[in-house]
């Protein structure tokens, strides 16, 4: 139980990822699958960001107003920038891949007039 509270972020990460995975596997609708993919992705991004957060830390922008002196002396008072930049690019790439997925879904709809997986398979067999 103590672990559960101290590592609450990982619990939410796992829940989000599993919700996304369930949606991708069990939902028959292609749009819902796309949304599930995006949710899975945000789960992973949340994992990276939350391991980069530090206790009592400030945001990774050095300003004089926040009593930062250039150069910084204590690295533990600034949140981890590395995980943030990895995920920053991942979000933009994520929206581009969401676009690719939606384009494929749109083409499939033009062929089969349906987003439903079962109907598409039926149409294929005909």
């Amino acid at each position: 139980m103590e672990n559960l509270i101290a590592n609450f972020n990982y619990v939410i990460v796992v829940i989000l990822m599993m919700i996304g995975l369930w949606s991708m596997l069990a939902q028959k609708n292609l749009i819902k699958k796309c949304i599930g993919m995006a949710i899975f992705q945000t789960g992973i991004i949340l994992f990276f960001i939350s391991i980069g957060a530090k206790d009592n830390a400030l945001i990774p922008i050095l300003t004089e107003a926040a009593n930062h002196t250039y150069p910084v002396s204590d690295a533990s008072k600034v949140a981890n920038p590395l995980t943030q930049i990895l995920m920053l690019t991942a979000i933009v790439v994520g929206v581009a891949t969401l676009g690719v997925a939606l384009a494929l879904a749109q083409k499939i709809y033009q062929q089969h007039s349906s987003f439903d997986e079962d109907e598409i398979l039926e149409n294929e067999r005909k």
Partner: protein
Amino acid sequence: MPELPIWQFDVLLLILVVLFAVVALSIRNLMGAAVVFGAYSFMMCLIWAGMGAVDVAFTEAAVGAGVSTVFVVSTLYNTGATMQRRTGGLTFKLFIGVVVTVAGAFLLSALPDFPKWGAPDSPVNATVAPYYILNTFEDAHVPNIVTSVLADYRGFDTLLETTVVFIACIAIYSIMRVDKAKLETDEPAIVAAPRYDPSDSLIVRQASRFMVPFMQLFALYVIAHGHYSPGGGFQGGVILGASLILLAISFDLKFLLRQWSEKTLMLLVAVGVFLYAAVGLTCMFMGGDYLDYGFLDSILPGEKDMARSHGILLVEIGVGITVMFSMIAIHINLASNGRFDRGL
């Protein structure tokens, strides 16, 4: 408990975000699901701001409010699908549910081995990240550590990510784009043309006309001021793209295509990546390694650290151009069903 600055908000928002995810997937109306998914991204933005990741929060704000929901809406617009079919396979869903639960339990069983939430000495925070935090300002004269790591220390990474956006744009182009003449003989278009009615919504058009210049000005500020505040090429590019998408929505697609022809759009998508790569190549010609902006000090003003700062700015401009025009090209392709004439 973690000692994050605003951990109360973080915990509450983490619970709320799970609720949003469940709601977005359980609504059977597809438009409803898309709209709730937009709100899910708002919550994610708040969580990242709460964990101190302002640049990520900014990117999510721009992407979630500006483009991603619009993409889903335009897909739904072009296909006309409204409701999800009520499928009978309850046992199948339950089976998947059990499988997923078991997988989640396996993942959760590793919970005690993870470092505590917010521990400053965890492996992630203790190895390479302190170097960036301590040395950024001497090396590159950039107070925003995220920007300097993004464009300088890990420049190759960002170059390839930009290329991925470029490739995704090309992929959507090759999936969606159809020849108009060929389509008319083959099959009728699925969606009939909405007539452009000038008296349709004067208020929306005038408000957009007022807002778009401010958006573009703000986006340029975000790109240029990214060294000192949250922002950079990705955020600014997405906001610039969203401003033109707003024009396309509130007027019509023809209005946008009159200004930016298909050829120009694709050319500019390539120009952004090219600018990034060219800056790297220039560094090689000046005697350094690829993307080592310090060697640009003979053609850029200032010493080595200022040269790196200016190099970062050039690279961010390249990223901004690519992201902006990719977003516009993706939107036009999705909204007009690849016909490039009319749409959402």
